[in-house]
């Protein structure tokens, strides 16, 4: 996967809690057998009306958010189905960083396997970012090495991410190759187990 160290980008605020993966990518788009091309379907039922036309009342469609790469959302983001198509769709649409107070466990893991950085900030910090990004075009810098998020107007917040996931994201490693360096231990375990 593509490494991510420091990312600067336009923020898109999605002021909703419990956004489930069925919303991120609805089931009718899960039938494809490749990892590519899901971006066009992201938030499909919110972005498009029943005739397949872009809805003006959904904020992601507004001109000021075009080119966004940082998604800021409410708590428990990515709950529900384990579909990795959700991070694939977000990434293919252009998101490299997600910021929320909390995530569903499976979704959080899936992001880190695909070079998307899921940042956890406090409710208050997230609300500040949402307010800023709703008010005007708003850019943030996310620095994974320093584990910091900041803007040019004085906002700065720290976040935590476990060292293992951080290292994988910073280096863009193939996790299977890393695991296979422990091949002898897996074989020993299997022999002992019988």
């Amino acid at each position, binding site marked *: 996967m593509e490494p991510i160290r420091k990312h600067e980008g336009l923020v898109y605020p999605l002021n*909703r*809690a*419990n956004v*489930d993966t*069925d*919303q991120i990518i*609805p*089931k*009718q788009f*899960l*039938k*494809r*057998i*490749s*990892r590519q091309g899901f971006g066009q379907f992201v938030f499909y*039922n919110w972005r498009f009306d*029943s005739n397949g036309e872009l809805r003006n009342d959904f904020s992601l469609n507004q001109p000021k958010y075009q080119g966004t790469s940082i998604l800021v959302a*409410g*708590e*428990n983001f990515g*709950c*529900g*189905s*384990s*579909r*990795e198509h959700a*991070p694939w769709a977000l990434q293919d649409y252009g998101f490299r960083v997600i910021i929320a107070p*909390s*995530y*569903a*466990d*499976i979704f959080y*893991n*899936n992001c880190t*396997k*695909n070079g998307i950085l899921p940042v956890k900030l406090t409710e208050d910090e997230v609300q500040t970012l949402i307010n800023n990004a709703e008010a005007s075009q708003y850019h943030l810098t996310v620095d994974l090495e320093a584990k910091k998020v900041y803007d040019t107007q004085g906002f700065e917040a720290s976040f935590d991410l*476990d*060292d*293992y996931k951080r290292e994988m994201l910073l280096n863009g490693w*193939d*996790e*299977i190759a890393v*695991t*296979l360096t*422990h091949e002898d*231990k*897996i074989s020993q*375990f*299997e022999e002992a*187990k019988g």
Partner: protein
Amino acid sequence: MRKPKTIIEKIWEKHIVHHEEGKPDLLYIDLHLVHEVTSPQAFEGLRINNRKVRRPDRTFATMDHNVPTIHRNVIKDEVSKTQMETLKANCEEFGVPLADIHHPDQGIVHVIGPELGLTQPGKTIVCGDSHTSTHGAFGALAFGIGTSEVEHVLATQTIWQQKPKTLNVKVNGKLGTGVTAKDLILAIIGKFGVKFGTGYVIEYTGEAIRDLSMEGRMTVCNMSIEAGARAGLISPDDTTVEFLRGKRHVPDGQEFEQLVEEWKALATDEGAIYDEQVEIDADEIEPQVTWGTNPGMCIPVSANVPTVDDANHENEREEITRALEYMGLEGGEPISSVEIEHVFIGSCTNSRLADLKRASEIVKGHKVNPNVRAIVVPGSHSVKAQAEKEGIDVIFKDAGFEWRDAGCSMCLAMNDDVVPEGERCASTSNRNFEGRQGTGARTHLVSPEMAAAAAIKGHFVDVRHLSIPTPS
């Protein structure tokens, strides 16, 4: 004296392949279940990197999400067809056993695992599906994974996992007559919310849990993910042992007796400490109906739909407003007055023989309301065959239900079993998210009994006070 341990810690410790301070553990996986939707990209990854499936003998595949439940031989959707053919080709290429659409073992992956005895206490089980938590009913550590992790498990038979925190959900007392495992888990999520289990593995304990059948326990563990917990489990006991006795992949004779000893030793020790504990009283629980767009938005069938004034803070006001609007509800009306157009009895939550049998007892001798289209989708070929042997299909068909072939069907509506926009469905499945059963479809989660009663009445009704005159 040895420190008392939870079943979660015991299973964890037995599966550590590699441990390094400050890092996740590398855990061995005993059983990997695979289906057509979340596996194609994983097999493709193996091919690109010239890797093999390490343990095809610990891997088992089936087709469930996408399969038609009617006219089995005609798959009109070319993309669905390709996905199923891809699974077949992948299983052949990598030597993975497959119960394909026509195989007698085919069914929803979380129904057939236990049915075949592949699911056993103490095992670590994964599948590219969030409802893998179902298998926890047997005292297995079972959780859903993404496709990258599917590829990782195929290649290495292991997974990197941070040791989870433990959460005891203690259910005191007894469930009343007509109150089911489904009502219990909905009430738990309704009370504690859709994310109280995030970061935890839940163990369900207490008298009401011990009283549940294996089918009931599967229903409860199945919806652990709806509380945010990747896994939920129940310590094995005699109920577990009797369910597994004689199952195809379970050894017999002396070997079985020895296994039983091991299984029972897994149960959480007296005095073991959990990171967190919550309690709920079973006797206070009524049959539940969800009114909104996540499983935590549920109320007793006797209650009224909430209004925005019930919100505790501004964000919740917005959530309730959005949910009411999507669901086409005013707020404040009795949930029992809400009329439905569809009934779906099925899904990995409630499609086992016992579920269908109990629903059929409500249906027997009655007719589906003329405004309602009702379908029953058995969880597996085997459930269907057994139900037909017992005449359960006839009860449903006589009442006007459609009797279908096995699959995930209308739970996520990936096949043709879709609820049309703006229409309302009483569903025994697990998610009432926007668009889940079809774009604009409105889902109300209920037990099989409550779904059956709603099919007859055309609206929600308390199954405990059901007075439907039975024709003599």
